[in-house]
């Protein structure tokens, strides 16, 4: 059989629908995992042993087990304890939890590179610890963490495809249906390959833009005598 994209293009509305859901899930997960990541990172550096250990355990477990296993655990397990939600919500939650673990490590690394002298300066003026973190440490740490976080978010977008295995009608889910209907899996999945590449390109572009914006005047430039 020769390659024929016609059948696939005829279904583009359906594909775009799936794309829409993918984007929604991605945005929601990016936001959730970002906030959660900051929280867990702060727990990781907290002087309280239980917080410290719990956060460490969470990170260790979620980074060393497959996302698919985590997803199935939540999808099949949650109804057993009485929490019944639709696959989209479950999927978004599972995804956020998984990515947040990685984010926490990235953000923690960012926090650790903040110049100790700068933190001391803030403390020396009497700033409360909460404010030291809110106004000085986190703004600097997050700037450092921006690129690695961007990488993690690109990965997140790609991982949304796994949600199709729990009946989510995202881009991948719909593509599977189209492939079954049109008997043209090659064309469908090739289109998908390119579609996901385009999505990651957009996410990377946003990250680069944010990086340029935040760093345009903060990075060391050759100094003229001033």
């Amino acid at each position: 059989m020769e390659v024929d994209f016609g059948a696939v293009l005829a279904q583009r509305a359906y594909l775009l629908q799936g794309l829409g859901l993918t984007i929604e899930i991605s945005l929601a997960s990016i936001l959730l995992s970002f906030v959660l990541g900051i929280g867990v990172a702060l727990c990781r550096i907290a002087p309280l042993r239980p917080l410290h250990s719990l956060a460490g355990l969470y990170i260790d477990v979620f980074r060393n087990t497959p996302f698919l296993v985590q997803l199935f655990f939540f999808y099949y397990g949650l109804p057993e304890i009485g929490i019944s939600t639709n696959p989209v919500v479950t999927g978004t939650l599972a995804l956020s939890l998984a990515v947040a673990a990685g984010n926490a490590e990235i953000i923690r690394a960012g926090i650790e590179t903040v110049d100790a002298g700068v933190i001391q300066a803030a403390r020396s003026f009497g700033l409360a610890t909460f404010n030291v973190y809110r106004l000085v440490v986190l703004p600097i740490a997050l700037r450092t963490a921006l690129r690695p976080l961007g990488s993690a978010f690109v990965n997140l977008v790609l991982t949304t495809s796994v949600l199709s295995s729990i009946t989510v009608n995202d881009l991948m889910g719909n593509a599977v249906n189209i492939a079954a209907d049109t008997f043209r899996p090659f064309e469908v999945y090739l289109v998908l390959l390119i579609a996901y590449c385009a999505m990651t390109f957009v996410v990377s572009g946003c990250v680069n833009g944010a990086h340029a914006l935040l760093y345009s005047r903060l990075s060391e430039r050759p100094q003229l005598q001033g």
Partner: protein
Amino acid sequence: MNLYQYTAFVPHDAMLIWNGFLWTFGIFASSTVLGSLLGFLLALLLHARVPILAWLVAGFVELFRNSPLLVQLFLVFYGLPVVTSFSPSATEAAILTMTVNTAAFMVVIVVAALDAVPRGQWHAAISSGMGYPQVMRLVVLPQAVRTVIPPAIVLAVGQLQTSSLVSIIGVNELARAGTILNNRTLRPFIVWPVIGLIYFVMAKLLSHFAARVERRVRARITWFAPAT
């Protein structure tokens, strides 16, 4: 008919899991080794700026790094048999796709390691008359090895987790064993933590083993100046 008999765990399930583990390990190990080799070779093509081929490699890398493994899997397993005469079995498709996927990520790691070797090394070697292959073999690669290992370990651990996706096209590995057990016993709170634990232990063992190898490599490379 006593339904409960069907939904309980049986001793044979241990065999199912053990089998799954072996297959996961096999698929992971083979695809990682092959993928690393392939990635290394492609990285050389890219780094040496071989005309046309370098661009193809670059394009290939971008395509396979920026798309989901699942889509790649489906493309190979469901898509190729329809437009070509190539009809891989699920396992073959799994190993092939993971190899290619791993290779794409390895290319980036290797190129970064090569770039990390100071330009001065090239200049020194070339000005003494050595050709590209010699420079690579004798000067650059030995220095690049040290930089390659840590990110390669991270990639490997990641690919171990990602290999679970091949269960979706029916490969009888560990995650699939979990699916089978889960669907039969309907006990997700036992099945998935157990499966997850096995992956966890595998990942930890891999990390520790790899770290030991890295330490041995470092110990042998005593002449290396600390990287900034």
